[in-house]
């Protein structure tokens, strides 16, 4: 069975930001995932540019995606444009953070 973007997003949902307490997909930090055969290219951002978890988040995302059956490699690219804001987060996260 071919790996779909949805399967990649499900894997990424296992990565939790330990400061905020939510997974990085629900936080809206994932901008896209492109599956090309057994390789995945993930584009993501972080809530703050000086975040000390920068490289760890990238590594955890890569490891989570590479656990998917049929995926051999994953490249994670951190981008700063567009800058993250809370409207990108899920309703559940917005509610929990008090952003509603």
């Amino acid at each position, binding site marked *: 069975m071919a790996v779909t973007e949805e399967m990649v997003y499900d894997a990424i949902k*296992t990565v*939790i930001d*330990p*400061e*905020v*307490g939510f997974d990085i997909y629900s936080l809206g930090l994932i901008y896209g995932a492109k599956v090309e055969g057994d390789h995945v290219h993930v584009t993501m951002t972080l*809530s*703050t*540019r*000086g*975040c*000390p*978890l*920068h*490289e*760890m988040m*990238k*590594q*955890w995302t890569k*490891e*989570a995606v590479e656990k998917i059956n049929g995926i051999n490699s994953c490249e994670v690219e951190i981008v700063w444009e567009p*800058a*993250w*804001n*809370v409207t990108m987060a899920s309703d559940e996260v917005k509610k929990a*953070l*008090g*952003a509603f």
Partner: protein
Amino acid sequence: MAKNLATDMAPPFILVAHYMIAGAIFYAFTAFLLPFYANEVSGYFLSSSIASLMHLYLLGFVMMVIFGAMYQLVPVVLEIPIFSKDFAYVQFYMFVGGILIFTFGLRDENYTQILPYGAMLMYVSILIFITNIFLTYRNITRWDIVAKFILVSNIFLTIGVTIGFIIALNLIYGFYPDILDLVQMHIATTIFGYVIMTIMGIGMILLPMFSLSHGFKQTAIEMAFYTIITGLVLFLIGTFFKINILKFGGVLFSTIAIFFALYQMYLIFSTRIRKQNDFWAKNMMASFATLIISFFILLTGVITKNDTYYLLFGFTLFFGFFTFFVVGHIYKILPFLVWYQRYSPLVGKIKVPMLNDMVHEKVADIQFWITLVGLLLAISAIILKIPLIFQVGTVIMGIGTLLVIYNIYFTLVYGIEELENYNKGLKNGGN
């Protein structure tokens, strides 16, 4: 394994922990001594014993934690590795030794002969820190407002500690008659030029990061940056050449800069997404409130020319603004360091805690209110000149300090037993 700016390039956890733990010990030490100063609350604000206590607190606690935090944050914020980790170790031991010798020499007139040695140790140790920062800047590519603040604050620190060293030598050898001028320049450059400028700069990273603030303009902090530099330069020239109008202009510009920075902090807080007023948010609000109050006290002192207000200004700034700001960030930085060391290799293998779980929230909350009540009592005592109330207030503040120490211990030992059981399970063939 991925290269990690926060950890691989910065000094290891154990070094930053050295600074944090030493800072906590000096904090406790100061808290223990503070009630014994009750009879000096109506005294002259530049007595050597008060100067000794202020140095113990500022250098031992505030600057110790700032130095440790800078080693952790500079690589992350500037996206370059620290020039030398070894420098950071050498600095630490010299700094601790220097503080102990210097403050003891300043406190006890029978031991003033050791004062220059302590001053020399501290001076060299801080120069090592500054050199490390300047050499780190050789490779910088991003010149944002935070990078500018860190650079300029370290230039002021160089001036400030050099003046401080001259004052220490002057106390023994008496070669410069206008020591009060030197003291004022020393205070301006170290407290405003270094500590407050560093807090302004690093605050632009820490406050939005922990409050998840976005979409605010940075014009106010940029104005604060240029205004505080103008203010400090005017103050230094005015004091050195005894030109009162320049000195007054310096105070005015520096005060305006503080209010620009406060307005920036307000903008950050007003756009914050995390609305919960947790222990960090409460500490931040109290720190900025006490900063505002301290400046109104300073203004009253300038108008009334009453020394008590200068003492009160220093007390409110040190034990209000600095305490709440530093303690609030210890609750954020220390859990991250311990979490990285202990749990980051286990992500995906076991359920790892959130960073907030690693602080005892209830104790942190009680500590905040106790510290606030104690501070307000101590401030009232200085205004009313009632030593007994000062003693009660500072003892209550001391209880708050003990609760901070408990929470540091709580974070340092968090999950050790659970992880030992996990490792035993692995050895026994479990998963």
